[in-house]
């Protein structure tokens, strides 16, 4: 290609602005989406974590077995972590502990809720956390030093201290203790997402100040999912070796510590070491690869569209090419000119793609927050730029080769040999039909898949949850140092007083208390149940304590039996209600009323009678786990407060009410039930939104593509249509002829897409993903495509049938 080729290309494209803009926009947008997805997948699957020796950073994961059978795949025994941390282990360069929680700062205005981690000094060293101000934790803040200092995040420094350069030495009051700020982390610090995606820590405290309750600190059978043991393997140490070493020690200690509990005689633990990247990325790679696949299909559709447009343009340029041939141009000169024009278009598309990718990455950071990891690390890097221009170059070459093969060099001079009385090349119908068929098949598959997912998401988002949502709040109080300084009964008494005061409030209709509602922001706890008459079979179920009012305030309907009463709660009656899923797990027909169960976590537990079966909740995108609700007022409950219609409660109001009971009682979580459910269903909504966008883009591209290929097809047949008109075909006959000819490959394309979709559906049935298809999802895409075909057939043939036949024959 020469400079002259590019000059001619620019000039030529300047005279066909509509065509150039369509190609650049179509490819630019889809290539931009591809680049963004490439970036995301590169980040998740290939880019190393931003920590030194990231491949040696590991997290301990404990599995709980009973008689060699896995009963819990995430069992986090706090004492196991502490002991493993304290013990010398030559397999590790460093070890650290982490305990995640939320805390309330008690002196700042509005008592903000802060994401908090208690940790040992090694953690900051292991990830080489950069500091903006001050220092990290040192040996003086190690375990058992009881040194109340704090390191805060850059975000917290900006939000709560307005980037005060003199923040070091200031204090934060958490759990009634003043912690002196000794350091501020740099903005560039990327916190490893080990606990929850989207979690951003505000303040780090020494491990001595974790808020793990006393009774759980020594309990080897209890799992605290917010605690972690992390380590940096020694260079050259095999992960398996280190894993076996730590696992054998922990297993032996577990046996020693539980020897007095006969129900744990057959229980065992297994420790696995999982790399940081495996924990952080988790199953997100599946999601990101799926998104990449979706975008690749979009790009395929766009590429087919663009190819059709370029073919149509080439058909129009035959005369100009013929003149070049007559003047001595060889095949390579024609190819060079074609490549120059396509390359010019691809350059424009690439530049647009980079901008689109930038915008999409920013959008992804907002929309997928909490759902995909490492989002904050997404940026356009050199690898991404190379990828963009490489894809553009490959596409340009492919287009140019395909176009050149369509140009019959020997036939070009025949174009000039006519007397201008209406001679044109008639091109093979096979190529035309293949283009239409492939366009339709791709579009129909993408459209049908997107539509089914969208319809299912919409159904799930709009169906009743099975939980009362209006005029209701979910509230949780922090009791600060009361947790450690008073007995359980006293804590319960404080909460009971708060509940009574709430019930007396004229705005309030009803209050219920639960250890954790099914729509809670926190990870649920679970327990193992043994059922009378079912031998040694144990079932894992989500455990919830609640008072006699909770289930009725939450309005979770009964399918059998009854709720338990406040009186039964007060008398510590051993009663529970279960959900349908647990009922069916106990007994296939779900008839479990009167059955007695024993709980693993409850030492010396008595038999608990099942008195009711609740309808399963229908939370969008969440498979309802087995659940039981036991009659018991928890000591630090989540309250469900139903207010009278039109009434509202504020945190200030509730803090004032709680302060009457004890000044340390403060709200640290308050949302309306509707907000809590909205937060829970955000991934589903995001997926629905993305799918809707994908469907619309697919349809838009389909419309452009089908119009492009049909108008190209009509253009190729222009002369033939002129002949038909000349011998008496009426305009409507021509339109019907075109429609019939176009529908044939469209129908075949739809049949091909049906085969592909059925294959996809069969594959999905083998996976865990439950996709229900509907007749609308099957019928709407072909109907849309057929309507599109009819409309574009008319549009593309209109230019021919509205003119006298002589214009058509002359090629005007």
């Amino acid at each position, binding site marked *: 290609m020469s400079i002259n080729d590019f000059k001619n290309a620019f000039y030529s494209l300047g005279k066909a602005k509509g065509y150039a803009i369509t190609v650049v926009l179509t490819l630019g947008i889809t290539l931009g989406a591809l680049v963004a997805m490439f970036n995301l997948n590169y980040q998740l699957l290939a880019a190393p974590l931003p920590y030194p020796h990231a491949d040696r950073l590991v997290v301990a994961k404990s599995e709980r077995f009973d008689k060699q059978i896995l009963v819990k795949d995430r069992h986090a025994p706090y004492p196991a972590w502490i002991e493993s941390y304290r013990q010398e282990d030559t397999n590790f360069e460093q070890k650290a502990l982490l305990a995640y929680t939320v805390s309330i700062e008690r002196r700042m205005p509005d008592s903000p809720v802060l994401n908090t981690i208690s940790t040992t000094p090694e953690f900051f060293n292991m990830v080489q956390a950069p500091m903006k101000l001050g220092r990290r934790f040192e040996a003086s803040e190690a375990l058992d030093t009881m040194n109340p200092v704090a390191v805060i995040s850059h975000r917290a420094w900006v939000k709560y201290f307005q980037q005060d350069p003199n923040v070091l030495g200031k204090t934060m009051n958490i759990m009634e203790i003043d912690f002196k700020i000794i350091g501020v982390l740099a903005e560039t610090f990327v916190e490893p997402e080990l606990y929850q995606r989207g979690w951003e820590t505000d303040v780090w405290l020494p491990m001595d100040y974790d808020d793990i309750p006393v009774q759980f600190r020594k309990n080897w059978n209890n799992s605290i999912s917010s605690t972690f043991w992390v380590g940096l393997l020694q260079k050259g140490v095999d992960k398996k070796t280190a894993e076996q070493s730590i696992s054998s020690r922990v297993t032996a200690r577990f046996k020693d510590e539980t020897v007095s509990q006969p129900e744990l005689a057959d229980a065992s633990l297994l420790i696995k070491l999982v790399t940081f990247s495996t924990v952080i990325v988790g199953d997100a790679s599946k999601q990101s690869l799926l998104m990449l696949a979706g975008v690749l299909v979009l790009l395929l559709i766009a590429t087919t569209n663009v190819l059709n447009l370029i073919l149509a343009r080439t058909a129009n340029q035959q005369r100009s090419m013929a003149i070049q041939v007559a003047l001595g141009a060889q095949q390579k000169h024609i190819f060079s000119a074609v490549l120059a024009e396509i390359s010019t278009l691809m350059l424009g598309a690439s530049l647009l793609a980079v901008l689109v990718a930038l915008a999409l990455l920013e959008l992804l950071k907002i929309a997928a927050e909490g759902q995909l990891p490492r989002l904050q690390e997404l940026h356009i890097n050199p690898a991404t730029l190379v990828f963009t221009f490489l894809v553009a170059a490959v596409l340009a070459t492919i287009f140019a080769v395909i176009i050149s093969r369509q140009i019959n060099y020997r036939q070009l001079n025949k174009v000039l040999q006519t007397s201008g009385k*209406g001679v044109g090349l008639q091109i093979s119908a096979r190529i035309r039909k293949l283009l239409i068929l492939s366009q339709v098949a791709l579009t129909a598959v993408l459209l049908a898949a997107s539509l089914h997912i969208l319809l299912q998401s919409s159904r799930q988002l709009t169906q009743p949850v099975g939980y009362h949502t209006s005029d209701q709040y979910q509230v949780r109080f922090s009791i600060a140092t009361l947790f450690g300084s008073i007995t359980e009964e006293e804590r319960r008494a404080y909460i009971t007083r708060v509940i009574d005061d709430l019930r007396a409030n004229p705005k309030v209709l009803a209050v219920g208390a639960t250890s954790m509602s099914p729509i809670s922001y926190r990870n649920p706890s679970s327990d193992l149940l043994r059922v009378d008459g079912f031998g040694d079979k144990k079932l894992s179920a989500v455990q919830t304590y609640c008072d006699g009012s909770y289930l009725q305030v939450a309005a979770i309907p009964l399918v059998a039996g009854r709720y338990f009463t406040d009186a039964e709660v007060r008398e510590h009656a051993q009663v529970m209600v279960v959900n349908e899923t647990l009922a069916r797990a106990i007994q296939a027909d779900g008839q479990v009323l009167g059955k007695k169960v024993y709980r693993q976590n409850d030492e010396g537990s008595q038999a608990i009678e099942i008195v009711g079966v609740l309808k399963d909740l229908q939370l969008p995108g969440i498979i309802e786990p087995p659940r039981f609700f036991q009659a018991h007022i928890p000591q630090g409950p989540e309250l469900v407060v139903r207010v009278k219609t039109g009434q509202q409660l504020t945190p200030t109001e509730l803090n004032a009410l709680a302060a009457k009971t004890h000044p340390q009682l403060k709200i640290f979580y308050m949302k309306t039930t509707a907000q809590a459910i909205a937060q829970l269903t955000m991934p589903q909504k995001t997926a629905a939104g993305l799918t809707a966008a994908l469907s619309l883009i697919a349809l838009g591209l389909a419309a452009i593509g089908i119009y492009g290929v049909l108008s190209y097809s009509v253009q190729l047949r222009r002369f033939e249509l002129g002949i038909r008109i000349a011998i008496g075909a009426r305009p409507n006959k021509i339109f019907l002829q075109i429609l019939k000819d176009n529908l044939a490959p469209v129908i075949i394309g739809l049949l091909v897409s049906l085969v592909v979709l059925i294959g996809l559906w069969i594959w999905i049935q083998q996976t865990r993903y439950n996709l229900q298809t509907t007749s609308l999802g099957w019928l709407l895409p072909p109907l849309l495509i057929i309507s599109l075909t009819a409309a574009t057939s008319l549009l593309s043939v209109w230019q021919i049938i509205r003119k006298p036949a002589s214009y058509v024959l002359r090629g005007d």
Partner: protein
Amino acid sequence: MRELTLNMTGITKVYSTEDMDTHALRGIDLEIYKGDFVSICGPSGCGKSTLLSLLGLLDMPTTGKYFIEGKDVSQLNLSEAAFIRNEKIGFIFQSFNLIDELSVFDNVALPLRYRRNKVSEKDIEKKVLECLQIVDMTHRAQHKPNQLSGGQQQRIAIARALVGSPALLLVDEPTGNLDSRNGDAVMEMLQQLNANGTTLCMVTHDPRYADMASRKLHLLDGKIIDTQTLQAAESQQG
């Protein structure tokens, strides 16, 4: 009394662009009677193709009147023009203009399939075979046009033009893409058709073939001129 097949009076055709108006025809008066064999000659750019397009209702005149078998067809809409073209006119093009994807049989049958009143397949078959017989191409009925020679393709084009029993055959440079042997053969066929009563109007460059017609019209600068005026114009250029 001879039957008037077509009649044009004061026909003009102007092509207008942003920059200028091109007067392709400047007041054409023309009568063609049943059984006539009329040839239209003239230099390049004189308006022959335009006149033929208007005659065949492939285009509409800017001004003037045009009658076919007494019916005013001067300003028909596209649908009505197509009807008349289908039923009254047969077209033979210089480049044959057969449809490559259709067989010879289907190419010839095409005008009948566009008839306003549906023609049965049996009648179509009968008519097509009759016309193929006339041009001596029955044995190639299932071939595709690109399997035939130029002369054979032109004969198929003639058969297609005849299949609808048109009132008028318009012939545009029928021998332009043929060698002299095939050209003679085609002209012979056209003469035979005329002898059998078919009305023909032919545009040609070739004076030999123009002389085969019963009437010769000369076109110059968009007007039909008489022979004397033509000779004077030619001697001025000489």
